[in-house]
């Protein structure tokens, strides 16, 4: 669904705006009336305790779940607007240019690292091969595009520090390398918004540092990021904007600094009772003139 930019609700720098999103599984409200925006050229982090509904938000954005209610609007660089809740998953990646990785890594483990990145360029190569027919006949256009695709893959392999593993099966990589490969693969779809589900999970401190650098460079080259992360050092270090979820609801939204000091967030992470939270909030508000929450 493509619309013109006319809606006053969104400003041009909002790449993704989620409005009143709800997702119900039977009796469970996994997401309850959630609204937030992610701005173009920024890293937006989505954090929250286990089971808060972060992955469910991703699945709604990328079309793997159809939300029970709400609207998800993706604004592309060229002004096209896509209402993601109405699109099938593969069109969201193909046309709305939203790519994702998975919390439990999903690589094509029996294909080589290089092949993984070529599969990600499927749609472009499909068109270049005349939907296979011209390619079978040995069309030079396809040959040229195939070569370009390999160059692009090599570029991302280099960025992800996987160049010397290019011809090994993806399933043979170490855990950290698999995580990087999944990011490289998502980047090969030329996304404008990249959604990463816990990219730093299971990485050692050195790998985590390298990941920070990689993510920052991706942002600086113009791809906006939406990031789910438990590792606070990563979140605080690289994100420009943090949204905090608890039980499917937004409890805080702002800069990392702001969120870090939000008593609601502290309470959610430390597991304080609800009435104590109210106490804590009123305490903080009385202290710094009510600019909290």
């Amino acid at each position, binding site marked *: 669904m493509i619309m013109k930019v006319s809606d006053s609700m969104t400003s041009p720098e909002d790449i993704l705006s989620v409005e009143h999103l709800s997702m119900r599984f039977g009796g469970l409200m996994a997401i309850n009336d959630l609204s937030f925006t992610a701005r173009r050229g920024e890293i937006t982090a989505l954090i929250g305790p286990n089971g808060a509904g972060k992955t469910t938000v991703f699945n709604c954005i990328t079309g793997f779940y159809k939300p029970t209610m709400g609207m998800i609007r993706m604004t592309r660089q060229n002004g096209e607007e896509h209402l993601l809740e109405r699109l099938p998953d593969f069109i969201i990646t193909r046309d709305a240019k939203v790519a994702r990785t998975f919390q439990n890594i*999903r690589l094509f483990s029996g294909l080589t690292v290089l092949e993984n990145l070529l599969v990600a*360029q499927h749609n472009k190569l499909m068109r270049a091969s005349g939907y296979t027919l011209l390619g079978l006949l040995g069309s030079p256009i396809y040959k040229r595009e195939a070569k370009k695709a390999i160059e692009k893959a090599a570029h991302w392999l280099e960025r992800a520090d996987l160049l010397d593993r290019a011809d090994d099966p993806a399933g043979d990589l170490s855990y950290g390398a698999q995580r990087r490969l999944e990011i490289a693969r998502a980047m090969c779809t030329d996304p404008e918004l990249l959604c990463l589900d816990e990219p730093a999970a299971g990485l050692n401190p050195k790998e985590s540092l390298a990941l920070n650098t990689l993510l920052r460079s991706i942002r600086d080259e113009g791809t906006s990021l939406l990031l789910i992360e438990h590792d606070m050092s990563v979140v605080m270090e690289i994100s420009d904007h943090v949204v905090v979820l608890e039980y499917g609801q937004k409890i805080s939204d702002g800069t990392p600094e702001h969120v870090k000091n939000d008593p609601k967030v502290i309470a959610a992470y430390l597991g304080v009772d609800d009435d104590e939270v109210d106490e804590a909030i009123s305490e903080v508000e009385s202290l710094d003139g009510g600019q909290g929450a």
Partner: protein
Amino acid sequence: MANTVLDTPATEGSLVGKAIKEALFTGVMTLGLFLLYIGFRTDQDISNTPIVYGRPGLLAIFVAIAAVGRFLMVVFVQPLLKARKEAKAAAVVQDREATFFKKHILKFALVALIFYPPVIVSLYGFQGSLKFVDNFGIQILIYVMLAWGLNIVVGLAGLLDLGYVAFYAVGAYSYALLSSYYGLSFWVLLPISGILAAFWGMILGFPVLRLRGDYLAIVTLAFGEIIRLVLINWTDVTKGTFGVSSIPKATLFGIPFDASPNGFAKMFGLPMSSAYYKIFLFYLILVLCLITAYVTIRLRRMPVGRAWEALREDEIACRSLGINTVTTKLTAFSIGAMFGGFAGSFFAARQGFVSPESFVFMESAVILAIVVLGGMGSLTGIAVAAIVMTGGTELLREMEFLKHFFGPDFTPELYRMLLFGLAMVVVMILKPRGFVGSREPSAFLREKKAVSGSFTKEGHG
């Protein structure tokens, strides 16, 4: 039992002692198991009173086979397997040296196939060559082609199709019916049969490909049966169980293979023989097989082919990369079906007769078994498996001498399923990924390395 043997250090004396012990134990177990089944045979006489014969001799043979088998297993096979396992672990690097032979084995095979009919003819004469060219040549190559076609669906795209024979049937009946009703020639109908089969592949695929795994398998199985039942019951067109007979033969650039003055034999001044047609068919199916292989190899390097394999590995990841999985599955299904259709029309031209009997579920099962045995996705492995399975059946037919042992009523080919079952169990234990378990990457950056079968998946859809 097996573990205890593997764990002890294999000094020769203790091994034999151990083996004797285990052989005795196995013998006793076998005796206990078969005492009632084999040891006695019940029958009835004219007045319907039961008579019991003892069959101590047969029982002894069973027990002996089990005991000796166990002995040999423990003394020879297990140490051998163990040594092989160790050698494999140690010598991964040595693999490189075998590549010259490996690289050229396909060329050798192709040359051998091309020279197969002339060599056979020169050895056995035209009449004697019939059996070898037809039963061992054409028959095997038909299965090679069918298995290569199914390989696209099962081996590459990972879609378990239990009704592949339906497309074979569509191809065969397309040729049979269109040639007898409209008099169209083989060369016109060959592509048409393929297209019709592909069309049916789409028709079936569209509703069915939303299903995954077991559900897909069951629905494709049902589809295979539906096609067969339609062929049986639509008697006006298909003549039901009687089948369609006197289907025109294929021609060589318009030259028919018959006794007419412009037939092949007369034209070239050769003595009459049915062998020419068979040899012609042999080369025809060989070419069809080569086309199948060529297209498959080319397709694997195309984006669709890669998407098929990605689909087999992880469908959800495919969708997250913007791949339309429905059309991708449909292409795999219909291209696989198309090759089935080509093979079907060839089959009709070769037999001159088709009936629903040729398209039972057993055929689908055999073709699928060939694909699995060969190693899903590997053309070479599948060809070897087709030779073993189909050639094995034909060999069993030849084993007349077994009648001397088991009596004149013994028909060895009735035991083929038993033997295949056994062979499959053995192969799956020794080589769980089939004859060729590794896959060749479709593209490489620096060096082409085969991907070990332990990383590839079988697919769930």
